[in-house]
């Protein structure tokens, strides 16, 4: 897994609630057997017109967000299907972190497993950040996992919560399977207790 410590980057707004994983990556792109190559399909039905040309109306197609690496979105981001292709596509497109007022559970878990940081901030703060991003070209946020803070360009700081275990996994880019396998003896003891 990719480690995440601290990141400063251009923020892009996606001012919608309940963005589901069918939108993040539509099903016709799930047929691969690799973990890579999903960046071109991110938000496909929103990003591209029927002709295949980019839809100028879609926010991520605006020139000012071309190098965005932090996505700021509304509540319940990532709801729906469990497809891990969603965080893969976001990450491969260039996002390092998603800021939202809430996340769907499976998406949130899948993001952690790939080093894509989901940051939860209160809804009014997210709405205010989105308004600032829209008002100011080149608006960048700094996300520091160690201190669990998001910093706005004007220096305003917002603390966010994260489980200690998930934080350590991300800071160290931990291999979770390797971590669990250290407890082989516990797993075996559990199995023999159950007669497995």
């Amino acid at each position, binding site marked *: 897994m990719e480690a995440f410590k601290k990141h400063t980057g251009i923020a892009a707004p996606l001012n919608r609630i309940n963005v589901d994983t*069918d939108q993040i990556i539509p099903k016709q792109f799930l*047929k691969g057997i*690799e973990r890579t190559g999903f960046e071109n399909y991110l938000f496909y*039905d929103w990003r591209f017109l029927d002709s295949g040309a980019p839809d100028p109306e879609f926010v991520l197609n605006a020139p000012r967000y071309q190098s965005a690496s932090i996505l700021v979105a509304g509540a*319940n981001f990532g709801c729906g*299907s469990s497809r891990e292709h969603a965080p893969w596509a976001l990450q491969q497109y260039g996002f390092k972190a998603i800021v939202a007022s809430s996340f769907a559970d499976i998406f949130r878990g*899948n993001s952690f*497993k790939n080093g894509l940081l989901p940051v939860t901030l209160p809804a009014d703060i997210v709405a205010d950040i989105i308004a600032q991003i829209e008002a100011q070209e080149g608006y960048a946020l700094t996300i520091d996992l160690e201190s669990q803070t998001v910093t706005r360009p004007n220096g305003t700081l917002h603390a966010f919560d994260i489980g200690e275990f998930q934080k350590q996994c991300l800071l160290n880019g931990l291999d979770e399977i390797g971590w*669990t396998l250290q407890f082989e003896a516990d797993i075996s003891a559990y199995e023999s207790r159950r007669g497995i």
Partner: protein
Amino acid sequence: MEPKTMFEKIWKDHVVRAMPNEATVLYIDTHLIHEVTTPQAFEGLRLAGRAVRHPEFTFATMDHNVPTTDRSLPIKDQIAVKQMETLAKNCEEFDITLYDIDSPEQGIVHVIGPELGITQPGKTICCGDSHTSTHGALGAFALGIGTSEVEHVLATQCLLYDKPETFEIRVDGKLPSGVTAKDIILSIIRRIGTDGGTGTVIEYTGSTISGLSIEERMTVCNMSIEAGARAGLIAPDDETYEYLANRQFSPQGQDFDKAVEIWRELPTDEGAAYDKSLHIDAQSLAPQVTWGTNPAMGADVTDVIPNPEEITTDDAKRATEGALAYMGLTPGTKITDVDIDKVFIGSCTNSRISDLRAAADIAKGRKVAETVNALVVPGSASVKRQAEAEGLDEIFRAAGFEWREAGCSMCLGMNPDILMPQQRCASTSNRNFEGRQGKGGRTHLVSPQMAAAAAIAGHFVDVREWESN
């Protein structure tokens, strides 16, 4: 002893290691896999030189992108073929039981798990698919997971998991006629929202729930994920044990009796506390039709399309406007005046034999409207055989429905069964997201009865006004 909820009992029985500031190592009894979310997991195992810890606890099927038309013809979509071949190769290499496209046991993973008796009370079950919550209908703690977690379970038979909270949704009273399990769960989601269950395991309780058949309970638990819940649960009872008796993977003979004794200990103790609760009166429920682009955007069939101007919060107002624009609907239109082009009866929510019987009951002796193309896709090869033995296929065909092979089909349209832009579909599936059934396609979620009636009328109808044959 302190009274416990059913979820707490199952959780406690499966903790391998729990330490402060660490995720719990939770033992997984059964792992179900399919072709779409596993290739990268097996590749990960190979790259790390890791084995599958318990191949005998893992079961595979092909469902998501299998064609539902004549299986003797070659499959046109070569990328889908590659994914199916990859699953077959992986199962062979790692020694995992596979019900492939030609197997008499093939079907949607959440239909065949219970059908084969793999799903049992008190078990922990995982699958790289969000509708794994279905299996909670038999009293299993069943979780949808991502591909990294699939790899984790394959390698360790464990999952790293944070303990969820518990949410009791109690439904009491007699269900009015024409109102189904699908209408119960759609009404719940409409009430609590698509994130109302986030972070929780929903336990459905109350006289209405315990009065449902096992298949109806599956419909309810199936859509727990549409309320954002990690899982859905229903206490096992005599109906559950009767359902499980003599299934292929159920304990047999005396072992079954012993298992039942243990299962009887599972239901939530009197006086156990849930973190949250909600109470619903079944008498107040009506047949549901969704009008928007998430499962919470629904209405009673007697309602009209809502007006965004009457919504007070900005986010919700914008979301409603967006949904109505996408769905091509005008506020104030009566739901029963909305015409449809397609009908899909199928998916892990509503493709079991009782669903097909209910739809056939409506279809019998009637004709699908000329403007409508309607599809019936059984959830498994075994459901299909049973339906054919009962002559349901004949009823559907005579009424003008297409009768297909088992699979996910138009639920997500990974195979050729998709909606064209702007086509409007009455669907018994679980998701009405933008583009879910095909780019630009418009999905309305309904019960099998409502879908069959809409197929015949060419528009939504209140199934309560129709006499069944």
